[in-house]
């Protein structure tokens, strides 16, 4: 637990972070796990532009007692279609591991916008709700249509979004087939964010499976708030809003400035729309990792072939199987993180579906120390990690979470789009 020390960020710490972003290159990094970002220098987004949005990694809306770190946040605006009623929501999590915009109802409350529930295309008397599954639980709430604006880009037409109902007694209530996913993740505290901006390499959050069979993801709810599983056509599923922009819609770039191995109070960077669509967002000499139909590539690490690997800004650490690294035990959450006695310098090789590969050096520090050093004032770490289980039947994975992004320019090309002359889905860095 890190609640013992939660002090206001000092101005000097911000300056250090800005320095690293603007011009210091790798000089500020004392061996942080991110030295091979080959394209960082070629992409200077400091000048801004309509397709550039600042990212900040900071405490955000997290409860001070939360063990929060590596949460990348942006600001998003949603408007009621056909009106000028809009709400600007800050502290929305940038998540390359999901698809679609989700906002907490509490963050929308009090703003001059009402996002009406989407009518069931098969029964206009009903409204569509969604149960968004996670590995440990679910987020439940109505699907609504909104005009989405992020930075200088606005969706052409309404985009299906999810309004996560974080009231104490949601109405309609989550059905039992939804709550069977685990625990309720219907709260700002569940994500330490006011919402989730899913901008990973797919368009819809579920895809054809939810269009052809009724699953415990989309529900049709009567006016009496009785909900049952339903199919939902692709065009009505909650969608990556980037794919609905009129331009710069084939993917995104996430770039975070380098930080030191001790971490930083604030991480800074950019979310950039489009790949090879403007003068500022070309692929350059980035290594392209094509993926399977789940968005996975292969990571080879320590003699293991981890065939379901992915790059995920929504994961706060690097999660991978390494039985030689000490776990944190009971001091920090039980066995969820690595706490080696001294920082481990490691390397893995990523390989795309087409065989292209690249070596990635990284470091794993003692997370307990990272969180407690500097009076607990740091929220950005490029060397936090934890174990991932290997399920023999399905293979294993390396979850390249936010530590991977520091000091790198990482590209996410959307399924079905062409980016830099290459068909998505792919990752590049």
């Amino acid at each position, binding site marked *: *637990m890190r609640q013992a020390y939660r002090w206001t960020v000092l101005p000097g710490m911000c300056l250090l972070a800005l320095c690293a972003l603007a011009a210091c290159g790798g000089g500020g990094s004392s061996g942080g796990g991110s030295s091979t970002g080959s394209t960082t220098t070629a992409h200077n987004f400091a000048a801004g532009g309509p397709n550039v949005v600042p990212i900040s990694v900071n405490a955000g809306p*997290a409860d001070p007692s939360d*063990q*929060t770190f*590596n*949460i990348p946040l942006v600001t998003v605006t949603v408007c009621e279609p056909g009106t000028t009623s809009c709400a600007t929501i800050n502290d929305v999590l940038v998540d390359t*591991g*999901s698809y679609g915009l989700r906002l907490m109802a509490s963050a929308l409350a009090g703003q001059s916008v009402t996002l009406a529930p989407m009518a069931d295309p098969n029964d206009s008397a009903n409204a569509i709700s969604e149960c*968004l*599954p*996670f*590995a*440990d*639980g679910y987020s439940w709430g109505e699907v609504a249509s909104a005009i989405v604006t992020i930075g200088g880009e606005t969706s052409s037409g309404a985009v299906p979004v999810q309004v996560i109902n974080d009231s104490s007694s949601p109405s309609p209530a989550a059905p*039992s*087939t939804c*709550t*069977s*996913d*685990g*625990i309720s993740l219907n709260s700002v505290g*569940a*994500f*330490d964010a006011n919402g989730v901006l899913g901008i*990973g390499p*797919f368009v819809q*959050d*579920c*895809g054809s*499976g939810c269009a052809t*069979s009724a*699953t*415990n993801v989309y529900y049709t709810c009567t006016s009496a708030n009785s909900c049952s599983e339903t199919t939902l056509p692709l065009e009505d599923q909650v969608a990556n809003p980037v794919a609905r922009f009129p331009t710069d819609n084939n993917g995104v770039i996430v770039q975070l400035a380098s930080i030191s191995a001790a971490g930083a109070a604030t991480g800074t960077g950019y979310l950039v729309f489009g790949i090879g669509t403007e003068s500022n967002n070309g692929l350059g000499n980035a290594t392209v990792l094509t993926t399977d*139909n*789940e*968005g*996975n590539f292969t990571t080879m690490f320590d003699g293991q072939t981890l065939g*379901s690997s*992915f790059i*995920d800004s*929504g*994961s*706060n*650490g690097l*999660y991978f199987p390494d039985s030689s690294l000490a776990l944190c035990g009971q001091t*920090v*959450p*039980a*066995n*969820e*993180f690595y706490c080696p006695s001294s920082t481990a310098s490691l390397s893995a090789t990523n390989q795309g579906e087409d065989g292209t590969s690249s070596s990635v050096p990284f470091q794993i520090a003692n997370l307990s120390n990272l969180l407690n050093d500097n009076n607990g004032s740091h929220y950005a770490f490029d060397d936090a990690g*934890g*174990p991932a*289980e290997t*399920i*023999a*039947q*399905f293979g294993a*994975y390396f*979850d390249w979470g936010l530590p991977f992004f520091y000091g790198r320019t990482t590209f996410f090309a959307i399924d079905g789009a062409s980016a830099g002359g290459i068909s998505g889905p792919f990752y590049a860095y």
Partner: protein
Amino acid sequence: MKLNPPGRLLIPAALMLGAIVALASPALAALGGSADSVSADSSAMRGQLRSTSLVQYDMQEITQGAQTVREYVTRSGQVFAVTWQGPVPPDLRQLLGTYFGRFQEAAAASHRTNPGVHRQLNIVQSDLVVQSSGRLRAFRGLAYLPALVPDGVSVDQLQ
């Protein structure tokens, strides 16, 4: 249903009967539950069921669209392990049965200590192991009861 290896010749007939019943209303037996209760289970997963008899256990596979659930049943008829894979997770309350509460407790504990992680949840306890991971379009998991795993069977080698 205690059978010696030669007696396995009798199993297909018994399994066939089970499969026919299950095809009418294929359902999940819960972890730790009795395979005999499959067809009586109230919450059905609408899918196709395939049964395979192996030397030390039976495997029942239910597929619905891109989602696959496998249940591993001991010779005495108890479900000792389940696995799942698909674009969305299966009904874990149904699949984990009486152990679903333990899953929720572990999720809640992890949520308190590490709110930044929703892509995986691992429970390693003396009587229960659950490994749940995934993100949209790519969920997978394994749950088993160490005490019920047949002698000589490695969970890593379940087919």
